[in-house]
């Protein structure tokens, strides 16, 4: 098997942009958990990092919105946001087009993913990479699930996407780490930013930790919008990662609300 790591983490822009406004103790504990993820990924011997992200209009718009898209380039760039605002410098990030092509080809056996030979990262990928591959020395395969422009892909399809990712990772000789990134409940970039439904988050994280497919797929988008906000749609990335973990249970390394980061911040990895 060549999926050597599977985990999830948060990606809100506040994690870097508003670091100085957070409770220092809480922030540093979260940063330490992200650094542990970095170490675990390095220790896994991963030769590429596949990111299952939920981007925010860096590449895809309602003129041609793919439910799923995977990058197939040798180089990516980001972040698109003002670097002084996000507090992450613009940089080129290495990819591996040949590996991407083989992964995409296998995924297409069951999921009609789009692909792209160009890709700009926004905070959805740039914030996690800032912690997970701070030297940008690990080739990245970006994947996106549309969680922004409704109609959105059903949760059950996100599960199938994750299963296809696992199959594709296991079919290539390279060792691949997989990281899903998204928020749980949040009302990002609105006047309600910082509102967090901790009860809903805890329930979802319980289902996620147990890799309880039935419960994770039991939410409707109406439920999610009401209880988890428009940011809650991003649980699709967690669901796809859980599917890729193929029934494995997860360990939660960090799960606490940090309102200035706009969500309950999470680091978790599966016992592959």
């Amino acid at each position: 098997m060549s999926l050597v790591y599977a985990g999830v983490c948060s990606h809100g822009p506040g994690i870097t942009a508003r670091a100085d406004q957070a409770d220092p103790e809480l922030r540093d504990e979260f940063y330490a958990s992200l650094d542990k993820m970095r170490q675990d990924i390095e220790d896994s011997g991963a030769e590429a990092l596949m990111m299952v992200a939920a981007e925010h209009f860096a590449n895809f718009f309602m003129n041609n919105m793919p439910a799923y898209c995977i990058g197939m380039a040798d180089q990516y760039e980001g972040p698109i946001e003002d670097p002084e605002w996000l507090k992450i410098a613009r940089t080129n990030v290495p990819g591996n087009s040949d590996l991407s092509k083989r992964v995409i080809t296998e995924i297409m056996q069951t999921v009609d993913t789009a692909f792209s030979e160009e890709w700009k990262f926004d905070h959805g990928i740039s914030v996690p990479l800032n912690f997970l591959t701070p030297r940008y020395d690990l080739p990245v395969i970006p994947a996106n699930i549309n969680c922004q422009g409704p109609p959105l892909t059903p949760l059950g399809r996100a599960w199938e996407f994750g299963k296809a990712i696992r199959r594709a990772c296991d079919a290539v000789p390279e060792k691949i780490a997989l990281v899903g990134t998204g928020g749980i409940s949040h009302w990002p970039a609105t006047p309600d930013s910082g509102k967090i439904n901790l009860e809903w988050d805890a329930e979802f994280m319980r289902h996620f930790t147990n890799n309880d497919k039935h419960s994770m797929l039991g939410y409707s988008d109406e439920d999610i919008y009401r209880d988890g906000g428009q940011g809650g749609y991003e649980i699709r990335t967690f669901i796809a990662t859980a599917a890729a973990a193929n029934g494995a249970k997860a360990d939660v390394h960090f799960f606490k609300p940090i309102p200035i980061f706009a969500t309950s911040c999470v680091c978790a990895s599966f016992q592959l």
Partner: protein
Amino acid sequence: MSLYYLQKVLYDINRDLAVQKQYQDDADTLFDNYALTDEERNALKQPDIGLLYVLGVNGQILMHFAAFHKIEWADYLQLMRDGITEHGPVREGVYAMTVVGERFTDNGNVES
């Protein structure tokens, strides 16, 4: 009225340095590529973050645009609230404010 094109011009500005330059140098010519009302053109030019929010611009698109204009986070949130006070509730889209008159502070407590 033409939220699709209003968001599209913002999407193009947010992701492309050349479009950002055109927006700064000659916004009218840039806007001619999109079906925009005069109200939308003015809101984009000022920029009127509050009105753009009320018109239904997706918060992620608006947040990146506000960052491009170097608007501080707390000011960005307040500009959206002011927009609602002035123009009424968000008219379209999924980024409406859910709770009127509340702020969610760093401690997670709700302040009126």
